């Protein structure tokens, strides 16, 4: 109980948040625009690259297998890990953050888009081939229109997660709200920490609403282009530094670990796995009841409105920021990482689960209701079993994501392999850093492959989500 009291005592220090005009003005002047610019710039870049590459792969033009493999490889290096690398190579500040985000998300979106294209209904595609049309034309007349809706849904969801990602890369010195957040925590200025978190929640909710609008009027997204192009240009990496960057990369090789460090690798990997799976498990346990409570077709309005706000907040605080808070509250090591991933994923799962329940075909449920069954029985016999397949798919996808998150939790002292990686970077042991980077990459890659294998066996495609 003492620990709990201590935690509440710690929480008290966050109140009231610093909403003085002076501080808000300071936030508005630099960190907020910087974060949004980074997000928009990275988004524009990665969406364009992703779409082109995915169309190329979807049309199965020469070398598509190689490109697909490249995407899968690149997206196995988590964004923050990439940012740590780019901070070393390109230097501290927004350009390295944006470069890391753009690279990671080009690969991540590119892979999803490519999967969408490749899982497109084969019959219209074959019919187009049968007219003697070239592969590229089949892509434009068949793949693009038949997947347009999924591309938009996923694309707008991506923007939201990119804003969160921008905050995260900020924590390793890439600028924006993340750098500000770390600053307030390091200065023990928790009232301002809360302000930054609130700003973050508001931003994410606003973007969520905008995304909803964009799905209805896709042309709005075109307006984002100039918004993204300007910061992308302003934050372009300095080309003069290119030779310097090459030199730095060369100095990092070959990757080396001392025998002692080598013996410690299994522990680090085990911890990382514990964080990933434990966190996901915790989130599932919490999100099932919360998801039910947030479903508009199940719960009473007061309940679902409240639960929805709660889930929004949990979701808007990135897992890494949850980790920061927990670590600051003296919950250290893998426990913090596990809880952090659990809390953030609860917000994500809660929303997705409730949507799965709301999207259930109404007919079988109505048939049940016609028997005079009460609400709870309806849920148990109709809605939940029917919503289970999409829920399982969404959870499976998130496991991949949480694996990435688990590898970076260490950066803030929340356990796992990220700690070793970050320490190596901070102490300029670049050979070691690259070694840990390769282990991280391998770990995530294996997880992705295992997951892809499972999905193949269960005949699940990303397009089905």
């Amino acid at each position, binding site marked *: 109980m003492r620990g709990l009291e201590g935690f509440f005592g710690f929480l008290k220090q966050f109140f009231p948040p610093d909403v003085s005009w002076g501080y808000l003005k300071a936030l508005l002047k630099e960190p907020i625009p910087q974060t949004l610019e980074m997000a928009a710039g990275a988004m524009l870049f990665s969406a364009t690259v992703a779409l082109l590459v995915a169309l190329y792969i979807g049309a199965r033009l020469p070398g598509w297998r190689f490109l697909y493999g490249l995407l899968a490889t690149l997206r196995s290096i988590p964004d923050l890990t990439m940012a740590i690398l780019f901070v070393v190579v390109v230097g501290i500040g927004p350009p390295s953050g944006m470069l890391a985000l753009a690279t990671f998300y080009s690969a991540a979106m590119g892979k999803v888009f490519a999967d969408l294209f490749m899982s497109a*209904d084969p*019959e*219209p595609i*074959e*019919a*187009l*081939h*049968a*007219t*003697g*049309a*070239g592969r*590229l*034309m*089949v892509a*434009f*007349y*068949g793949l693009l*229109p*038949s997947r*347009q*809706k999924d591309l938009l849904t996923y694309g707008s969801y991506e923007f939201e997660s990119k804003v969160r990602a921008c905050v995260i890369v900020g924590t390793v010195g890439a600028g924006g709200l993340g750098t500000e957040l770390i600053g307030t925590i390091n200065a023990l200025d928790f009232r301002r920490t809360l302000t930054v978190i609130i700003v973050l929640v508001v931003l994410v909710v606003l973007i969520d609403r905008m995304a909803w609008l964009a799905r209805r009027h896709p042309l709005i997204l075109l307006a984002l282009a100039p918004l993204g192009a300007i910061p992308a240009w302003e934050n372009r990496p300095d080309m003069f530094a290119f030779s310097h960057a090459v030199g730095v990369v060369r100095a990092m090789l070959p990757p080396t670990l001392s025998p002692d460090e080598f013996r410690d690798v299994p522990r680090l990997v085990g911890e990382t796995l514990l964080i990933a799976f434990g966190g996901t498990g915790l989130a599932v346990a919490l999100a099932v009841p919360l998801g039910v409570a947030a479903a508009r077709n199940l719960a009473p309005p007061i309940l679902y409105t409240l639960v929805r706000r709660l889930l929004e907040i949990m979701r808007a605080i990135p897992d890494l920021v949850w980790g920061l808070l927990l670590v600051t509250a003296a919950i250290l090591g893998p426990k913090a990482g596990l809880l952090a991933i659990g809390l953030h994923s609860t917000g994500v799962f809660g929303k997705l689960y409730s949507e799965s329940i709301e999207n259930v075909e109404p007919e079988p449920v109505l048939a049940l209701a016609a028997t005079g069954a009460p609400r709870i029985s309806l849920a148990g016999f109709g809605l939940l079993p029917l919503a289970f397949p999409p829920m399982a798919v969404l959870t499976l996808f998130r496991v991949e994501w949480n694996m990435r998150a688990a590898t970076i939790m260490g950066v803030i002292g929340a356990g796992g392999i990220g700690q070793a990686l970050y320490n190596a970077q901070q102490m300029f042991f670049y050979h070691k850093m690259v070694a840990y980077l390769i282990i991280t990459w391998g770990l995530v890659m294996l997880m992705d492959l295992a997951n892809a294998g499972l999905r193949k066996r269960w005949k699940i495609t990303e397009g089905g989500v």
Partner: protein
Amino acid sequence: MPLLNITNLVVIRSRKSSPVLNDVSLRVERGEKVAILGPSGAGKTTLFRAINGFVPIHSGQITVDDISVKGLRGRRLRQLRRHIAVVSQRHDLVERLRVYQNVMAGALGRWSTVRALRFLLRPLATELQEAEEALRRVGIAHKLRERTSDVSGGEHQRVAIARALVQQPALLLADEPIASLDPDLSHQILSLLCRLAEEAGFALLCSLHQQEYAYEFFDRVIRIEHGQIQRKDLRRSPIVDERVGAD
């Protein structure tokens, strides 16, 4: 020289299972209308896909206009496909495109890449006229600008036929074109296909379940079962003769 000449065609799915098509031989002359009868899984669809170069030929030969299909790739394969149009029972239109876009997809084989892309964004009046003309011939000119997902099942089939017309084929492969339609619509679609074949002069190879339609509309009927042709060249059938007699 026949338009389509298939000799001793064998198509296998895997080394272990029995062949999907076993020693199939078939000739179709220019402008001829041939029906293929057979139960589901007899190999009708595979036969059509083999003609179009979508399934590998294990042994035997398929020639279209004296060009061998076996081993054709890339540009040469696309050139062959330009002259063979396909209409099928499957939903093979791109639902999100407008009707005229689906119809003019039939021209993709002869259009340049630039023209095809430009058409998606900004179709010329003459191109729209061509689409409308094709749609008029299948009787649904008024659906020109509708979204394809909004037209009915029978109209879907007509859009697919209009696409085939735009392709200006020498041979039209119709793979169970009436499988999902009611008897009235089936009758309409088959007579439309046959009339168009006569007007435009293309050969028609059409697979069906219903033998009464086969004898009513086609010059020649072939029966295929378990991947093999059972009876060849049934030009007149006792059923049809009886019915003619009864009338």
